C-alpha cells in the first residue's frame, strides 16, 4: 500500500534555533504512528510544519508529501483545501480548540460545509451522526449546547468528531489525552480507535506517554533534541530497543503493574537546550554508554533490524530493559567498561548508595514472604477523621443568593503513622486537593477532626501552630510557581531557617544558615555553589529539588507532597522520585503524597487512599489495593492506566467508565459512584441495586489493611 503521508528530511528552525532536524517518516492508510518525545524535542513543531501551521518566523525545509503532493511551500489556498479534509488535527487543549460562542453542532456542521457542498440541514444531520459516533449521549440535544457546557473529555470527543467530519486520510493528534484524567483518557483513546475504524484514516499520535503509545500505535518514532533517534515497530522499540535514550525512558517510567518497587533508573542531566546542542550525539552527555567516538559527530540512523532504525553507534551493544529482570541496569551487567548510571558517583547523587536495600519496609520484608511488613508504626503523625469541606454556590450579581452547596470533601478519614507514606489519589474533582488544603491551613475544619502530630487543629495556640508549621512542610506541584522568582536560591532556602530560628540552632550547634543551605543543596543533589542563582536559571527537575530542599530545611517529620512530579518530564521524574524515596529512608520522614498518577503512587507509597467525589472509595496497603482492588472504581481506574508494554497492553481488557464525574453540588443519592459503576449497571439485580441507591456505603474492612466503600466489594486483579 502506498503511503498517505511522507515526511522527508524535515527541518524547522526559528532563527538560529533548529527545532526539528532531519525528521523523516511515512504513514500508510490505517496505520498508527506514535511520535514520542519529551518537551522541547520538537514533536509538536514537526506536526505544525506538516499542517503548514508554523508561526511566522519559522523556516521549514525538506519535503512533506500527502498522496505524493508536496505540501511544504504550497500556496495557502491549496493548503486550506487539504486541511480538515485530507489531514485533520486534534489538539491537546479541547477548550481552546472550540469557539466558545458557537453551538457545538454548528461548529461541526461548519467543518463539514467548508469542504463539502451540502445544505445546512444536511450538515447538521451529519454533525449529529458524528456526535453519536464519538459516544456523546443524546447527540441531538447536545448538538445545541455550547462548549462550556461540556466536560473536558466530552469536548475532546467533539474535537475528534470535527476532525473526522470530512473522512480525512490522516489525523494528527497532538497530545490528545494529556489534559485529561486516566479514566477519561481511556474513553477518548477508545473513541479515537472507533473514529479510525470509521474513516480508515492513518493516525499520527504525538505524546510523551509511553503507555499510550504501547497500546495504540503500530509503529513508534522516538524523538530527542529535534531528531528521530529510534524508529520501528512497537514491539521492536519496546522489546528490542537499540538506542540508550529509549532504554532510559522505558527504565525511568514508574509502572502501575507488578514488578514491585524496582529502583527507577533516571537519566542523568536534562535535555540540551536547542541553542546549545553538543557537537556529537545530542544524547551523549547523558548517556552511560558514551565513548569518545560519540562526541565526534551525530550518528545517523542505523538499520538495526527489519524496519527498525536507531541513531547510536553502539546499537549492537545496547540491551533492552527487561520487565522481569530485577537488575537495575538496563544492559548487560558484565560490561565492565560501561558505568551504568545507577551506581557510583555518590557525591552528586547521594541516594545512589541506597540501592533499595536500606529501605526498612523492603529490608524487613524478608521474613514475611513476598509481602511487606503489615505491622504499622505506633505513632500517628497525621489523623484525619470525618473531614468535611463544602463551599456555597451563589448566584446573582448584586444579591448573591445561595443556590446550592458543593461538597468538595464529604467525610474523609485516614491516618499516617511515623515513617509511613500515604498516597492520596483521585481524578480531578475528587477533592484530594481540598482535603490537602484543609490539613495545611491548620484551621478548625467545618466538620470532623484533623490531628497533626498529636495536636487537634481546632484547639491550637499560636505557639503550637508555629511548632506544627515547623514540623510539617509542603512541596508543590509546579516548582517554578512555588519558588519566589525574585529570590536567590540562598534566600529561598534560608527563609524557613530564619522563620524558625531555633530549629537549626538546636540541631546543628548554632551554625549560620549558609552552611545549612549548602548542606541542603548537597542533600538534594545540587551544586552548593549555585546558591546565588535564581530559580529561572534551573531546569524543571532541579527546581523541584530546590522545592524539596526548602521543605527539608527544618528537618520536618511530615512532608506533604502535592503532585510533586506531575509537571516534570519522564526522564527527569525518575530522579526526583528516587530522591524522595531515599530521603524518606535517610531522614525518617512521613509523606502525605497527593497525586493523580497511580503509577508514581505505587512506587512511593506504603498505603494508598483512592478518592472519588469527596469520599474515599478504597484505602489500604499498596500491594493489596493495586494487586486485588475491591472497589469497582479502583478497578476501573487501574485498568484505565496504559502500560508501557505493548503485548500486555493489547491483551488487557479495560473496564471503561461511562460518562463524567457527577456535579459535586448534586451528588447521586446513596453510593456516589453508582451512576458510573459497571457493577451497578451490569451485574447487580434490581433488589441489590436499591441498597446502592438508598444507603451510602461506609468503608468495610476486607482482609489485612484493605477497605472499600462498596456494598458489593469483591477483590479482582486488573493489572
Amino acid at each position, binding site marked *: 500500500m502506498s503511503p498517505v503521508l511522507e515526511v522527508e528530511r524535515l527541518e524547522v528552525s526559528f532563527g538560529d534555533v533548529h527545532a526539528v532536524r532531519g525528521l523523516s517518516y511515512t504513514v500508510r492508510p490505517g496505520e498508527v504512528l506514535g511520535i514520542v518525545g519529551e518537551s522541547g524535542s520538537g514533536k509538536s513543531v514537526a506536526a505544525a510544519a506538516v499542517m503548514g501551521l508554523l508561526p511566522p518566523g519559522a523556516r521549514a525545509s525538506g519535503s512533506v508529501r500527502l498522496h505524493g503532493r508536496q505540501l511544504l511551500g504550497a500556496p495557502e489556498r491549496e493548503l486550506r483545501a487539504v486541511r480538515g479534509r485530507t489531514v485533520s488535527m486534534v489538539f491537546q487543549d479541547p477548550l481552546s480548540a472550540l469557539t466558545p460562542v458557537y453551538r457545538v453542532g454548528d461548529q461541526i456542521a461548519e467543518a463539514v460545509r467548508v469542504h463539502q457542498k451540502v445544505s445546512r440541514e444536511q450538515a447538521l444531520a451529519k454533525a449529529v451522526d458524528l456526535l453519536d459516533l464519538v459516544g456523546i449521549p443524546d447527540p441531538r440535544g447536545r448538538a445545541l449546547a455550547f462548549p462550556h457546557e461540556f466536560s473536558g473529555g466530552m469536548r475532546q470527543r467533539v474535537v475528534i468528531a470535527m476532525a473526522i467530519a470530512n473522512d480525512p486520510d490522516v489525523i494528527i493528534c497532538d497530545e490528545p489525552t494529556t489534559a485529561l484524567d486516566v479514566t477519561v483518557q481511556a474513553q477518548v483513546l477508545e473513541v479515537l480507535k472507533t473514529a479510525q475504524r470509521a474513516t480508515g484514516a492513518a493516525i499520527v499520535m504525538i505524546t510523551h506517554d509511553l503507555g499510550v503509545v504501547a497500546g495504540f500505535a503500530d509503529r513508534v518514532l522516538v524523538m530527542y533534541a529535534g531528531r528521530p533517534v529510534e524508529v520501528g515497530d512497537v514491539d521492536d522499540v519496546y522489546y528490542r530497543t537499540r538506542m540508550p535514550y529509549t532504554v532510559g525512558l522505558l527504565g525511568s517510567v514508574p509502572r502501575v503493574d507488578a514488578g514491585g518497587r524496582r529502583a527507577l533508573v533516571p537519566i542523568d542531566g536534562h535535555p540540551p537546550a536547542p541553542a546549545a546542542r553538543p557537537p556529537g550525539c545530542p544524547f551523549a552527555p547523558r548517556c552511560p554508554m558514551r565513548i569518545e567516538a560519540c562526541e565526534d559527530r551525530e550518528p545517523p540512523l542505523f538499520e538495526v533490524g527489519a524496519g527498525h532504525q536507531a541513531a547510536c553507534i553502539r546499537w549492537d551493544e545496547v540491551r533492552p530493559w527487561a520487565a522481569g529482570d530485577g537488575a537495575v541496569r538496563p544492559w548487560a551487567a558484565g560490561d565492565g567498561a560501561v558505568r551504568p548510571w545507577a551506581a557510583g558517583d555518590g557525591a552528586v547523587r547521594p541516594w545512589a548508595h541506597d540501592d533499595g536495600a536500606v529501605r526498612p519496609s523492603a529490608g524487613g520484608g524478608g521474613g514475611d514472604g513476598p509481602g511487606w511488613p503489615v505491622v504499622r508504626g505506633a505513632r500517628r503523625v497525621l489523623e484525619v477523621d470525618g473531614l468535611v469541606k463544602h463551599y456555597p454556590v451563589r448566584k446573582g450579581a448584586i444579591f448573591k443568593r445561595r443556590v446550592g452547596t458543593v461538597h468538595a470533601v464529604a467525610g474523609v478519614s485516614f491516618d499516617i503513622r511515623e515513617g509511613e507514606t500515604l498516597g492520596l489519589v483521585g481524578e480531578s474533582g475528587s477533592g484530594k486537593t481540598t482535603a490537602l488544603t484543609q490539613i495545611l491551613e491548620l484551621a478548625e475544619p467545618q466538620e470532623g477532626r484533623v490531628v497533626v502530630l498529636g495536636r487537634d487543629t481546632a484547639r491550637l495556640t499560636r505557639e503550637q501552630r508555629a511548632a506544627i508549621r515547623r514540623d510539617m512542610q509542603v512541596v508543590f506541584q509546579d516548582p517554578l510557581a512555588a519558588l519566589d*522568582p525574585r529570590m536567590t536560591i540562598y534566600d529561598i532556602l534560608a527563609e524557613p531557617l530564619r522563620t524558625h530560628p531555633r530549629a537549626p540552632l538546636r540541631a546543628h550547634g548554632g551554625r549560620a544558615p*549558609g552552611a545549612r543551605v549548602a548542606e541542603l543543596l548537597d542533600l538534594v543533589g545540587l551544586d552548593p555553589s549555585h546558591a546565588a542563582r535564581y530559580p529561572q536559571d534551573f531546569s524543571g527537575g532541579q527546581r523541584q529539588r530546590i522545592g524539596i530542599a526548602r521543605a527539608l530545611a527544618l528537618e520536618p517529620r511530615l512532608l506533604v507532597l502535592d503532585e510533586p512530579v506531575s509537571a516534570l518530564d519522564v526522564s527527569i521524574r525518575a530522579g526526583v522520585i528516587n530522591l524522595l524515596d531515599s530521603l524518606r529512608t535517610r531522614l525518617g520522614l512521613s509523606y502525605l503524597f497527593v497525586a493523580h498518577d497511580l503509577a508514581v503512587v505505587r512506587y512511593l507509597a506504603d498505603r494508598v487512599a483512592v478518592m472519588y467525589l469527596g469520599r474515599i472509595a478504597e484505602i489500604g496497603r499498596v500491594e493489596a489495593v493495586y494487586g486485588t482492588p475491591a472497589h469497582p472504581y479502583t478497578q476501573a481506574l487501574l485498568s484505565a492506566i496504559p502500560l508501557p508494554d505493548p503485548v500486555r497492553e493489547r491483551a488487557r481488557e479495560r473496564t471503561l467508565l461511562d460518562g463524567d464525574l457527577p456535579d459535586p453540588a448534586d451528588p447521586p443519592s446513596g453510593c456516589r459512584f453508582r451512576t458510573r459503576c459497571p457493577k451497578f449497571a451490569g451485574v447487580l439485580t434490581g433488589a441489590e441495586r436499591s441498597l446502592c441507591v438508598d444507603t451510602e456505603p461506609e468503608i468495610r474492612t476486607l482482609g489485612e489493611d484493605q477497605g472499600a466503600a462498596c456494598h458489593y466489594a469483591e477483590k479482582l486483579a486488573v493489572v
Partner: protein
Amino acid sequence: MTLSEEELAEERTGPGPARAAPPSRLRVVTGRFFASRQGRLGFAVLAVLVALACAGPLFSPWAYTDKDFLAFLRPPSAAHWFGTSQTGADVYAMTLRGMRRSLLVGLLAALVSTALAALVGAFAGYFLGWTDRVLSRLTDLLLVLPAFLILAIMSPLFGAGQWPLFVLMLALFLWMVTSKITRGMTISLKQREFVQAARYMGVPPMKIIFSHVLPNLSSLLIVDATLNVSAAILTETSLSYFGFGIQPPDVSLGTLIADGSRTAVYAPWTFWFAAGLLVITVLAVNLVGDALRDAFDPTARRSR
C-alpha cells in the same frame, strides 16, 4: 531525623568556598546594580549632583540671598559663573540652592509617596476584609480631593524651614493610583504558590508582605518612584510658579525656571542652567531606576 553522624562530620570538615559569602538578595541586587553601565552612570551623575548641591555653594563668594547691585542681568563671567538675574542675584548660587531644595523635595516626595502606595496597597490586598475596606475608602477619599487647591490653601504653612511639611503634603497626593494597582497585584500574588508556601511554612504575614509581595512588585514600584520624582519636582515647580510652593527668599528649581522663563529669550543663562540641571536630575533618576529594576528582576537580560 538528622543526617548520619558520619555525614555531619563530613559536612563540618568539608570546606566550601560558596559558604564564605552567603549570597543573599541584597548582595546580589547591589552587585547586579553596579554591574550595569546604566546603574553606574546614573548613580555617579546623581552623586555628583548631590555633592554639587551641598558643597557647591561653599566655593562661590556669593550666597543665594546676596544681590550684586553693580551687575543686573549679566552673562556668565569670572565674578558670576552663571551670570546674574534681573535683581542682581548670582545665578550659580541660586541654581545650586534651588537644586538642593528640588532634589530634597523631589526624591523625598517620590520615596514617601511610593512607600505609602506600596504599604497601603499591599496591606489592603493581602489582608482584605476590614483592612481593605478602610484603606480603600481612604484612597478613594484622597483621590477625589482637589490636590492643587488644598496645597494652595495650605501654602502659608510652608514658610521658612517648613519644607518637610511641604514634602509630606506633596507625597500625600501622589500615591493613590499606584496604591490601587498595588492592591490588585497583591491580590493576584497572594494566590501564587510561593506565597502559599511561605504561609504554610509559618512565615508571619508582615514578613511575607515585605519579603515576597513587595519584591515581586518592585518593577512597578521603581518605575512609579522614578516617575514620581519628576512629577513631584514639576508639581512643586507649578505650585511655586503660582507662588504657593517654596516661599521666597528660599528658591527651588521651579521658582528659578518660572522667573527665568520671562528673560530666557534675551538672557538664556537665567533659564538654561536651572532647566538643564532639572533635566539631568530627572535623567539620572531614571537611569538609576531602570538599573535597579533590572537588578531586582532576575529575568532581565544580563549585562555580564
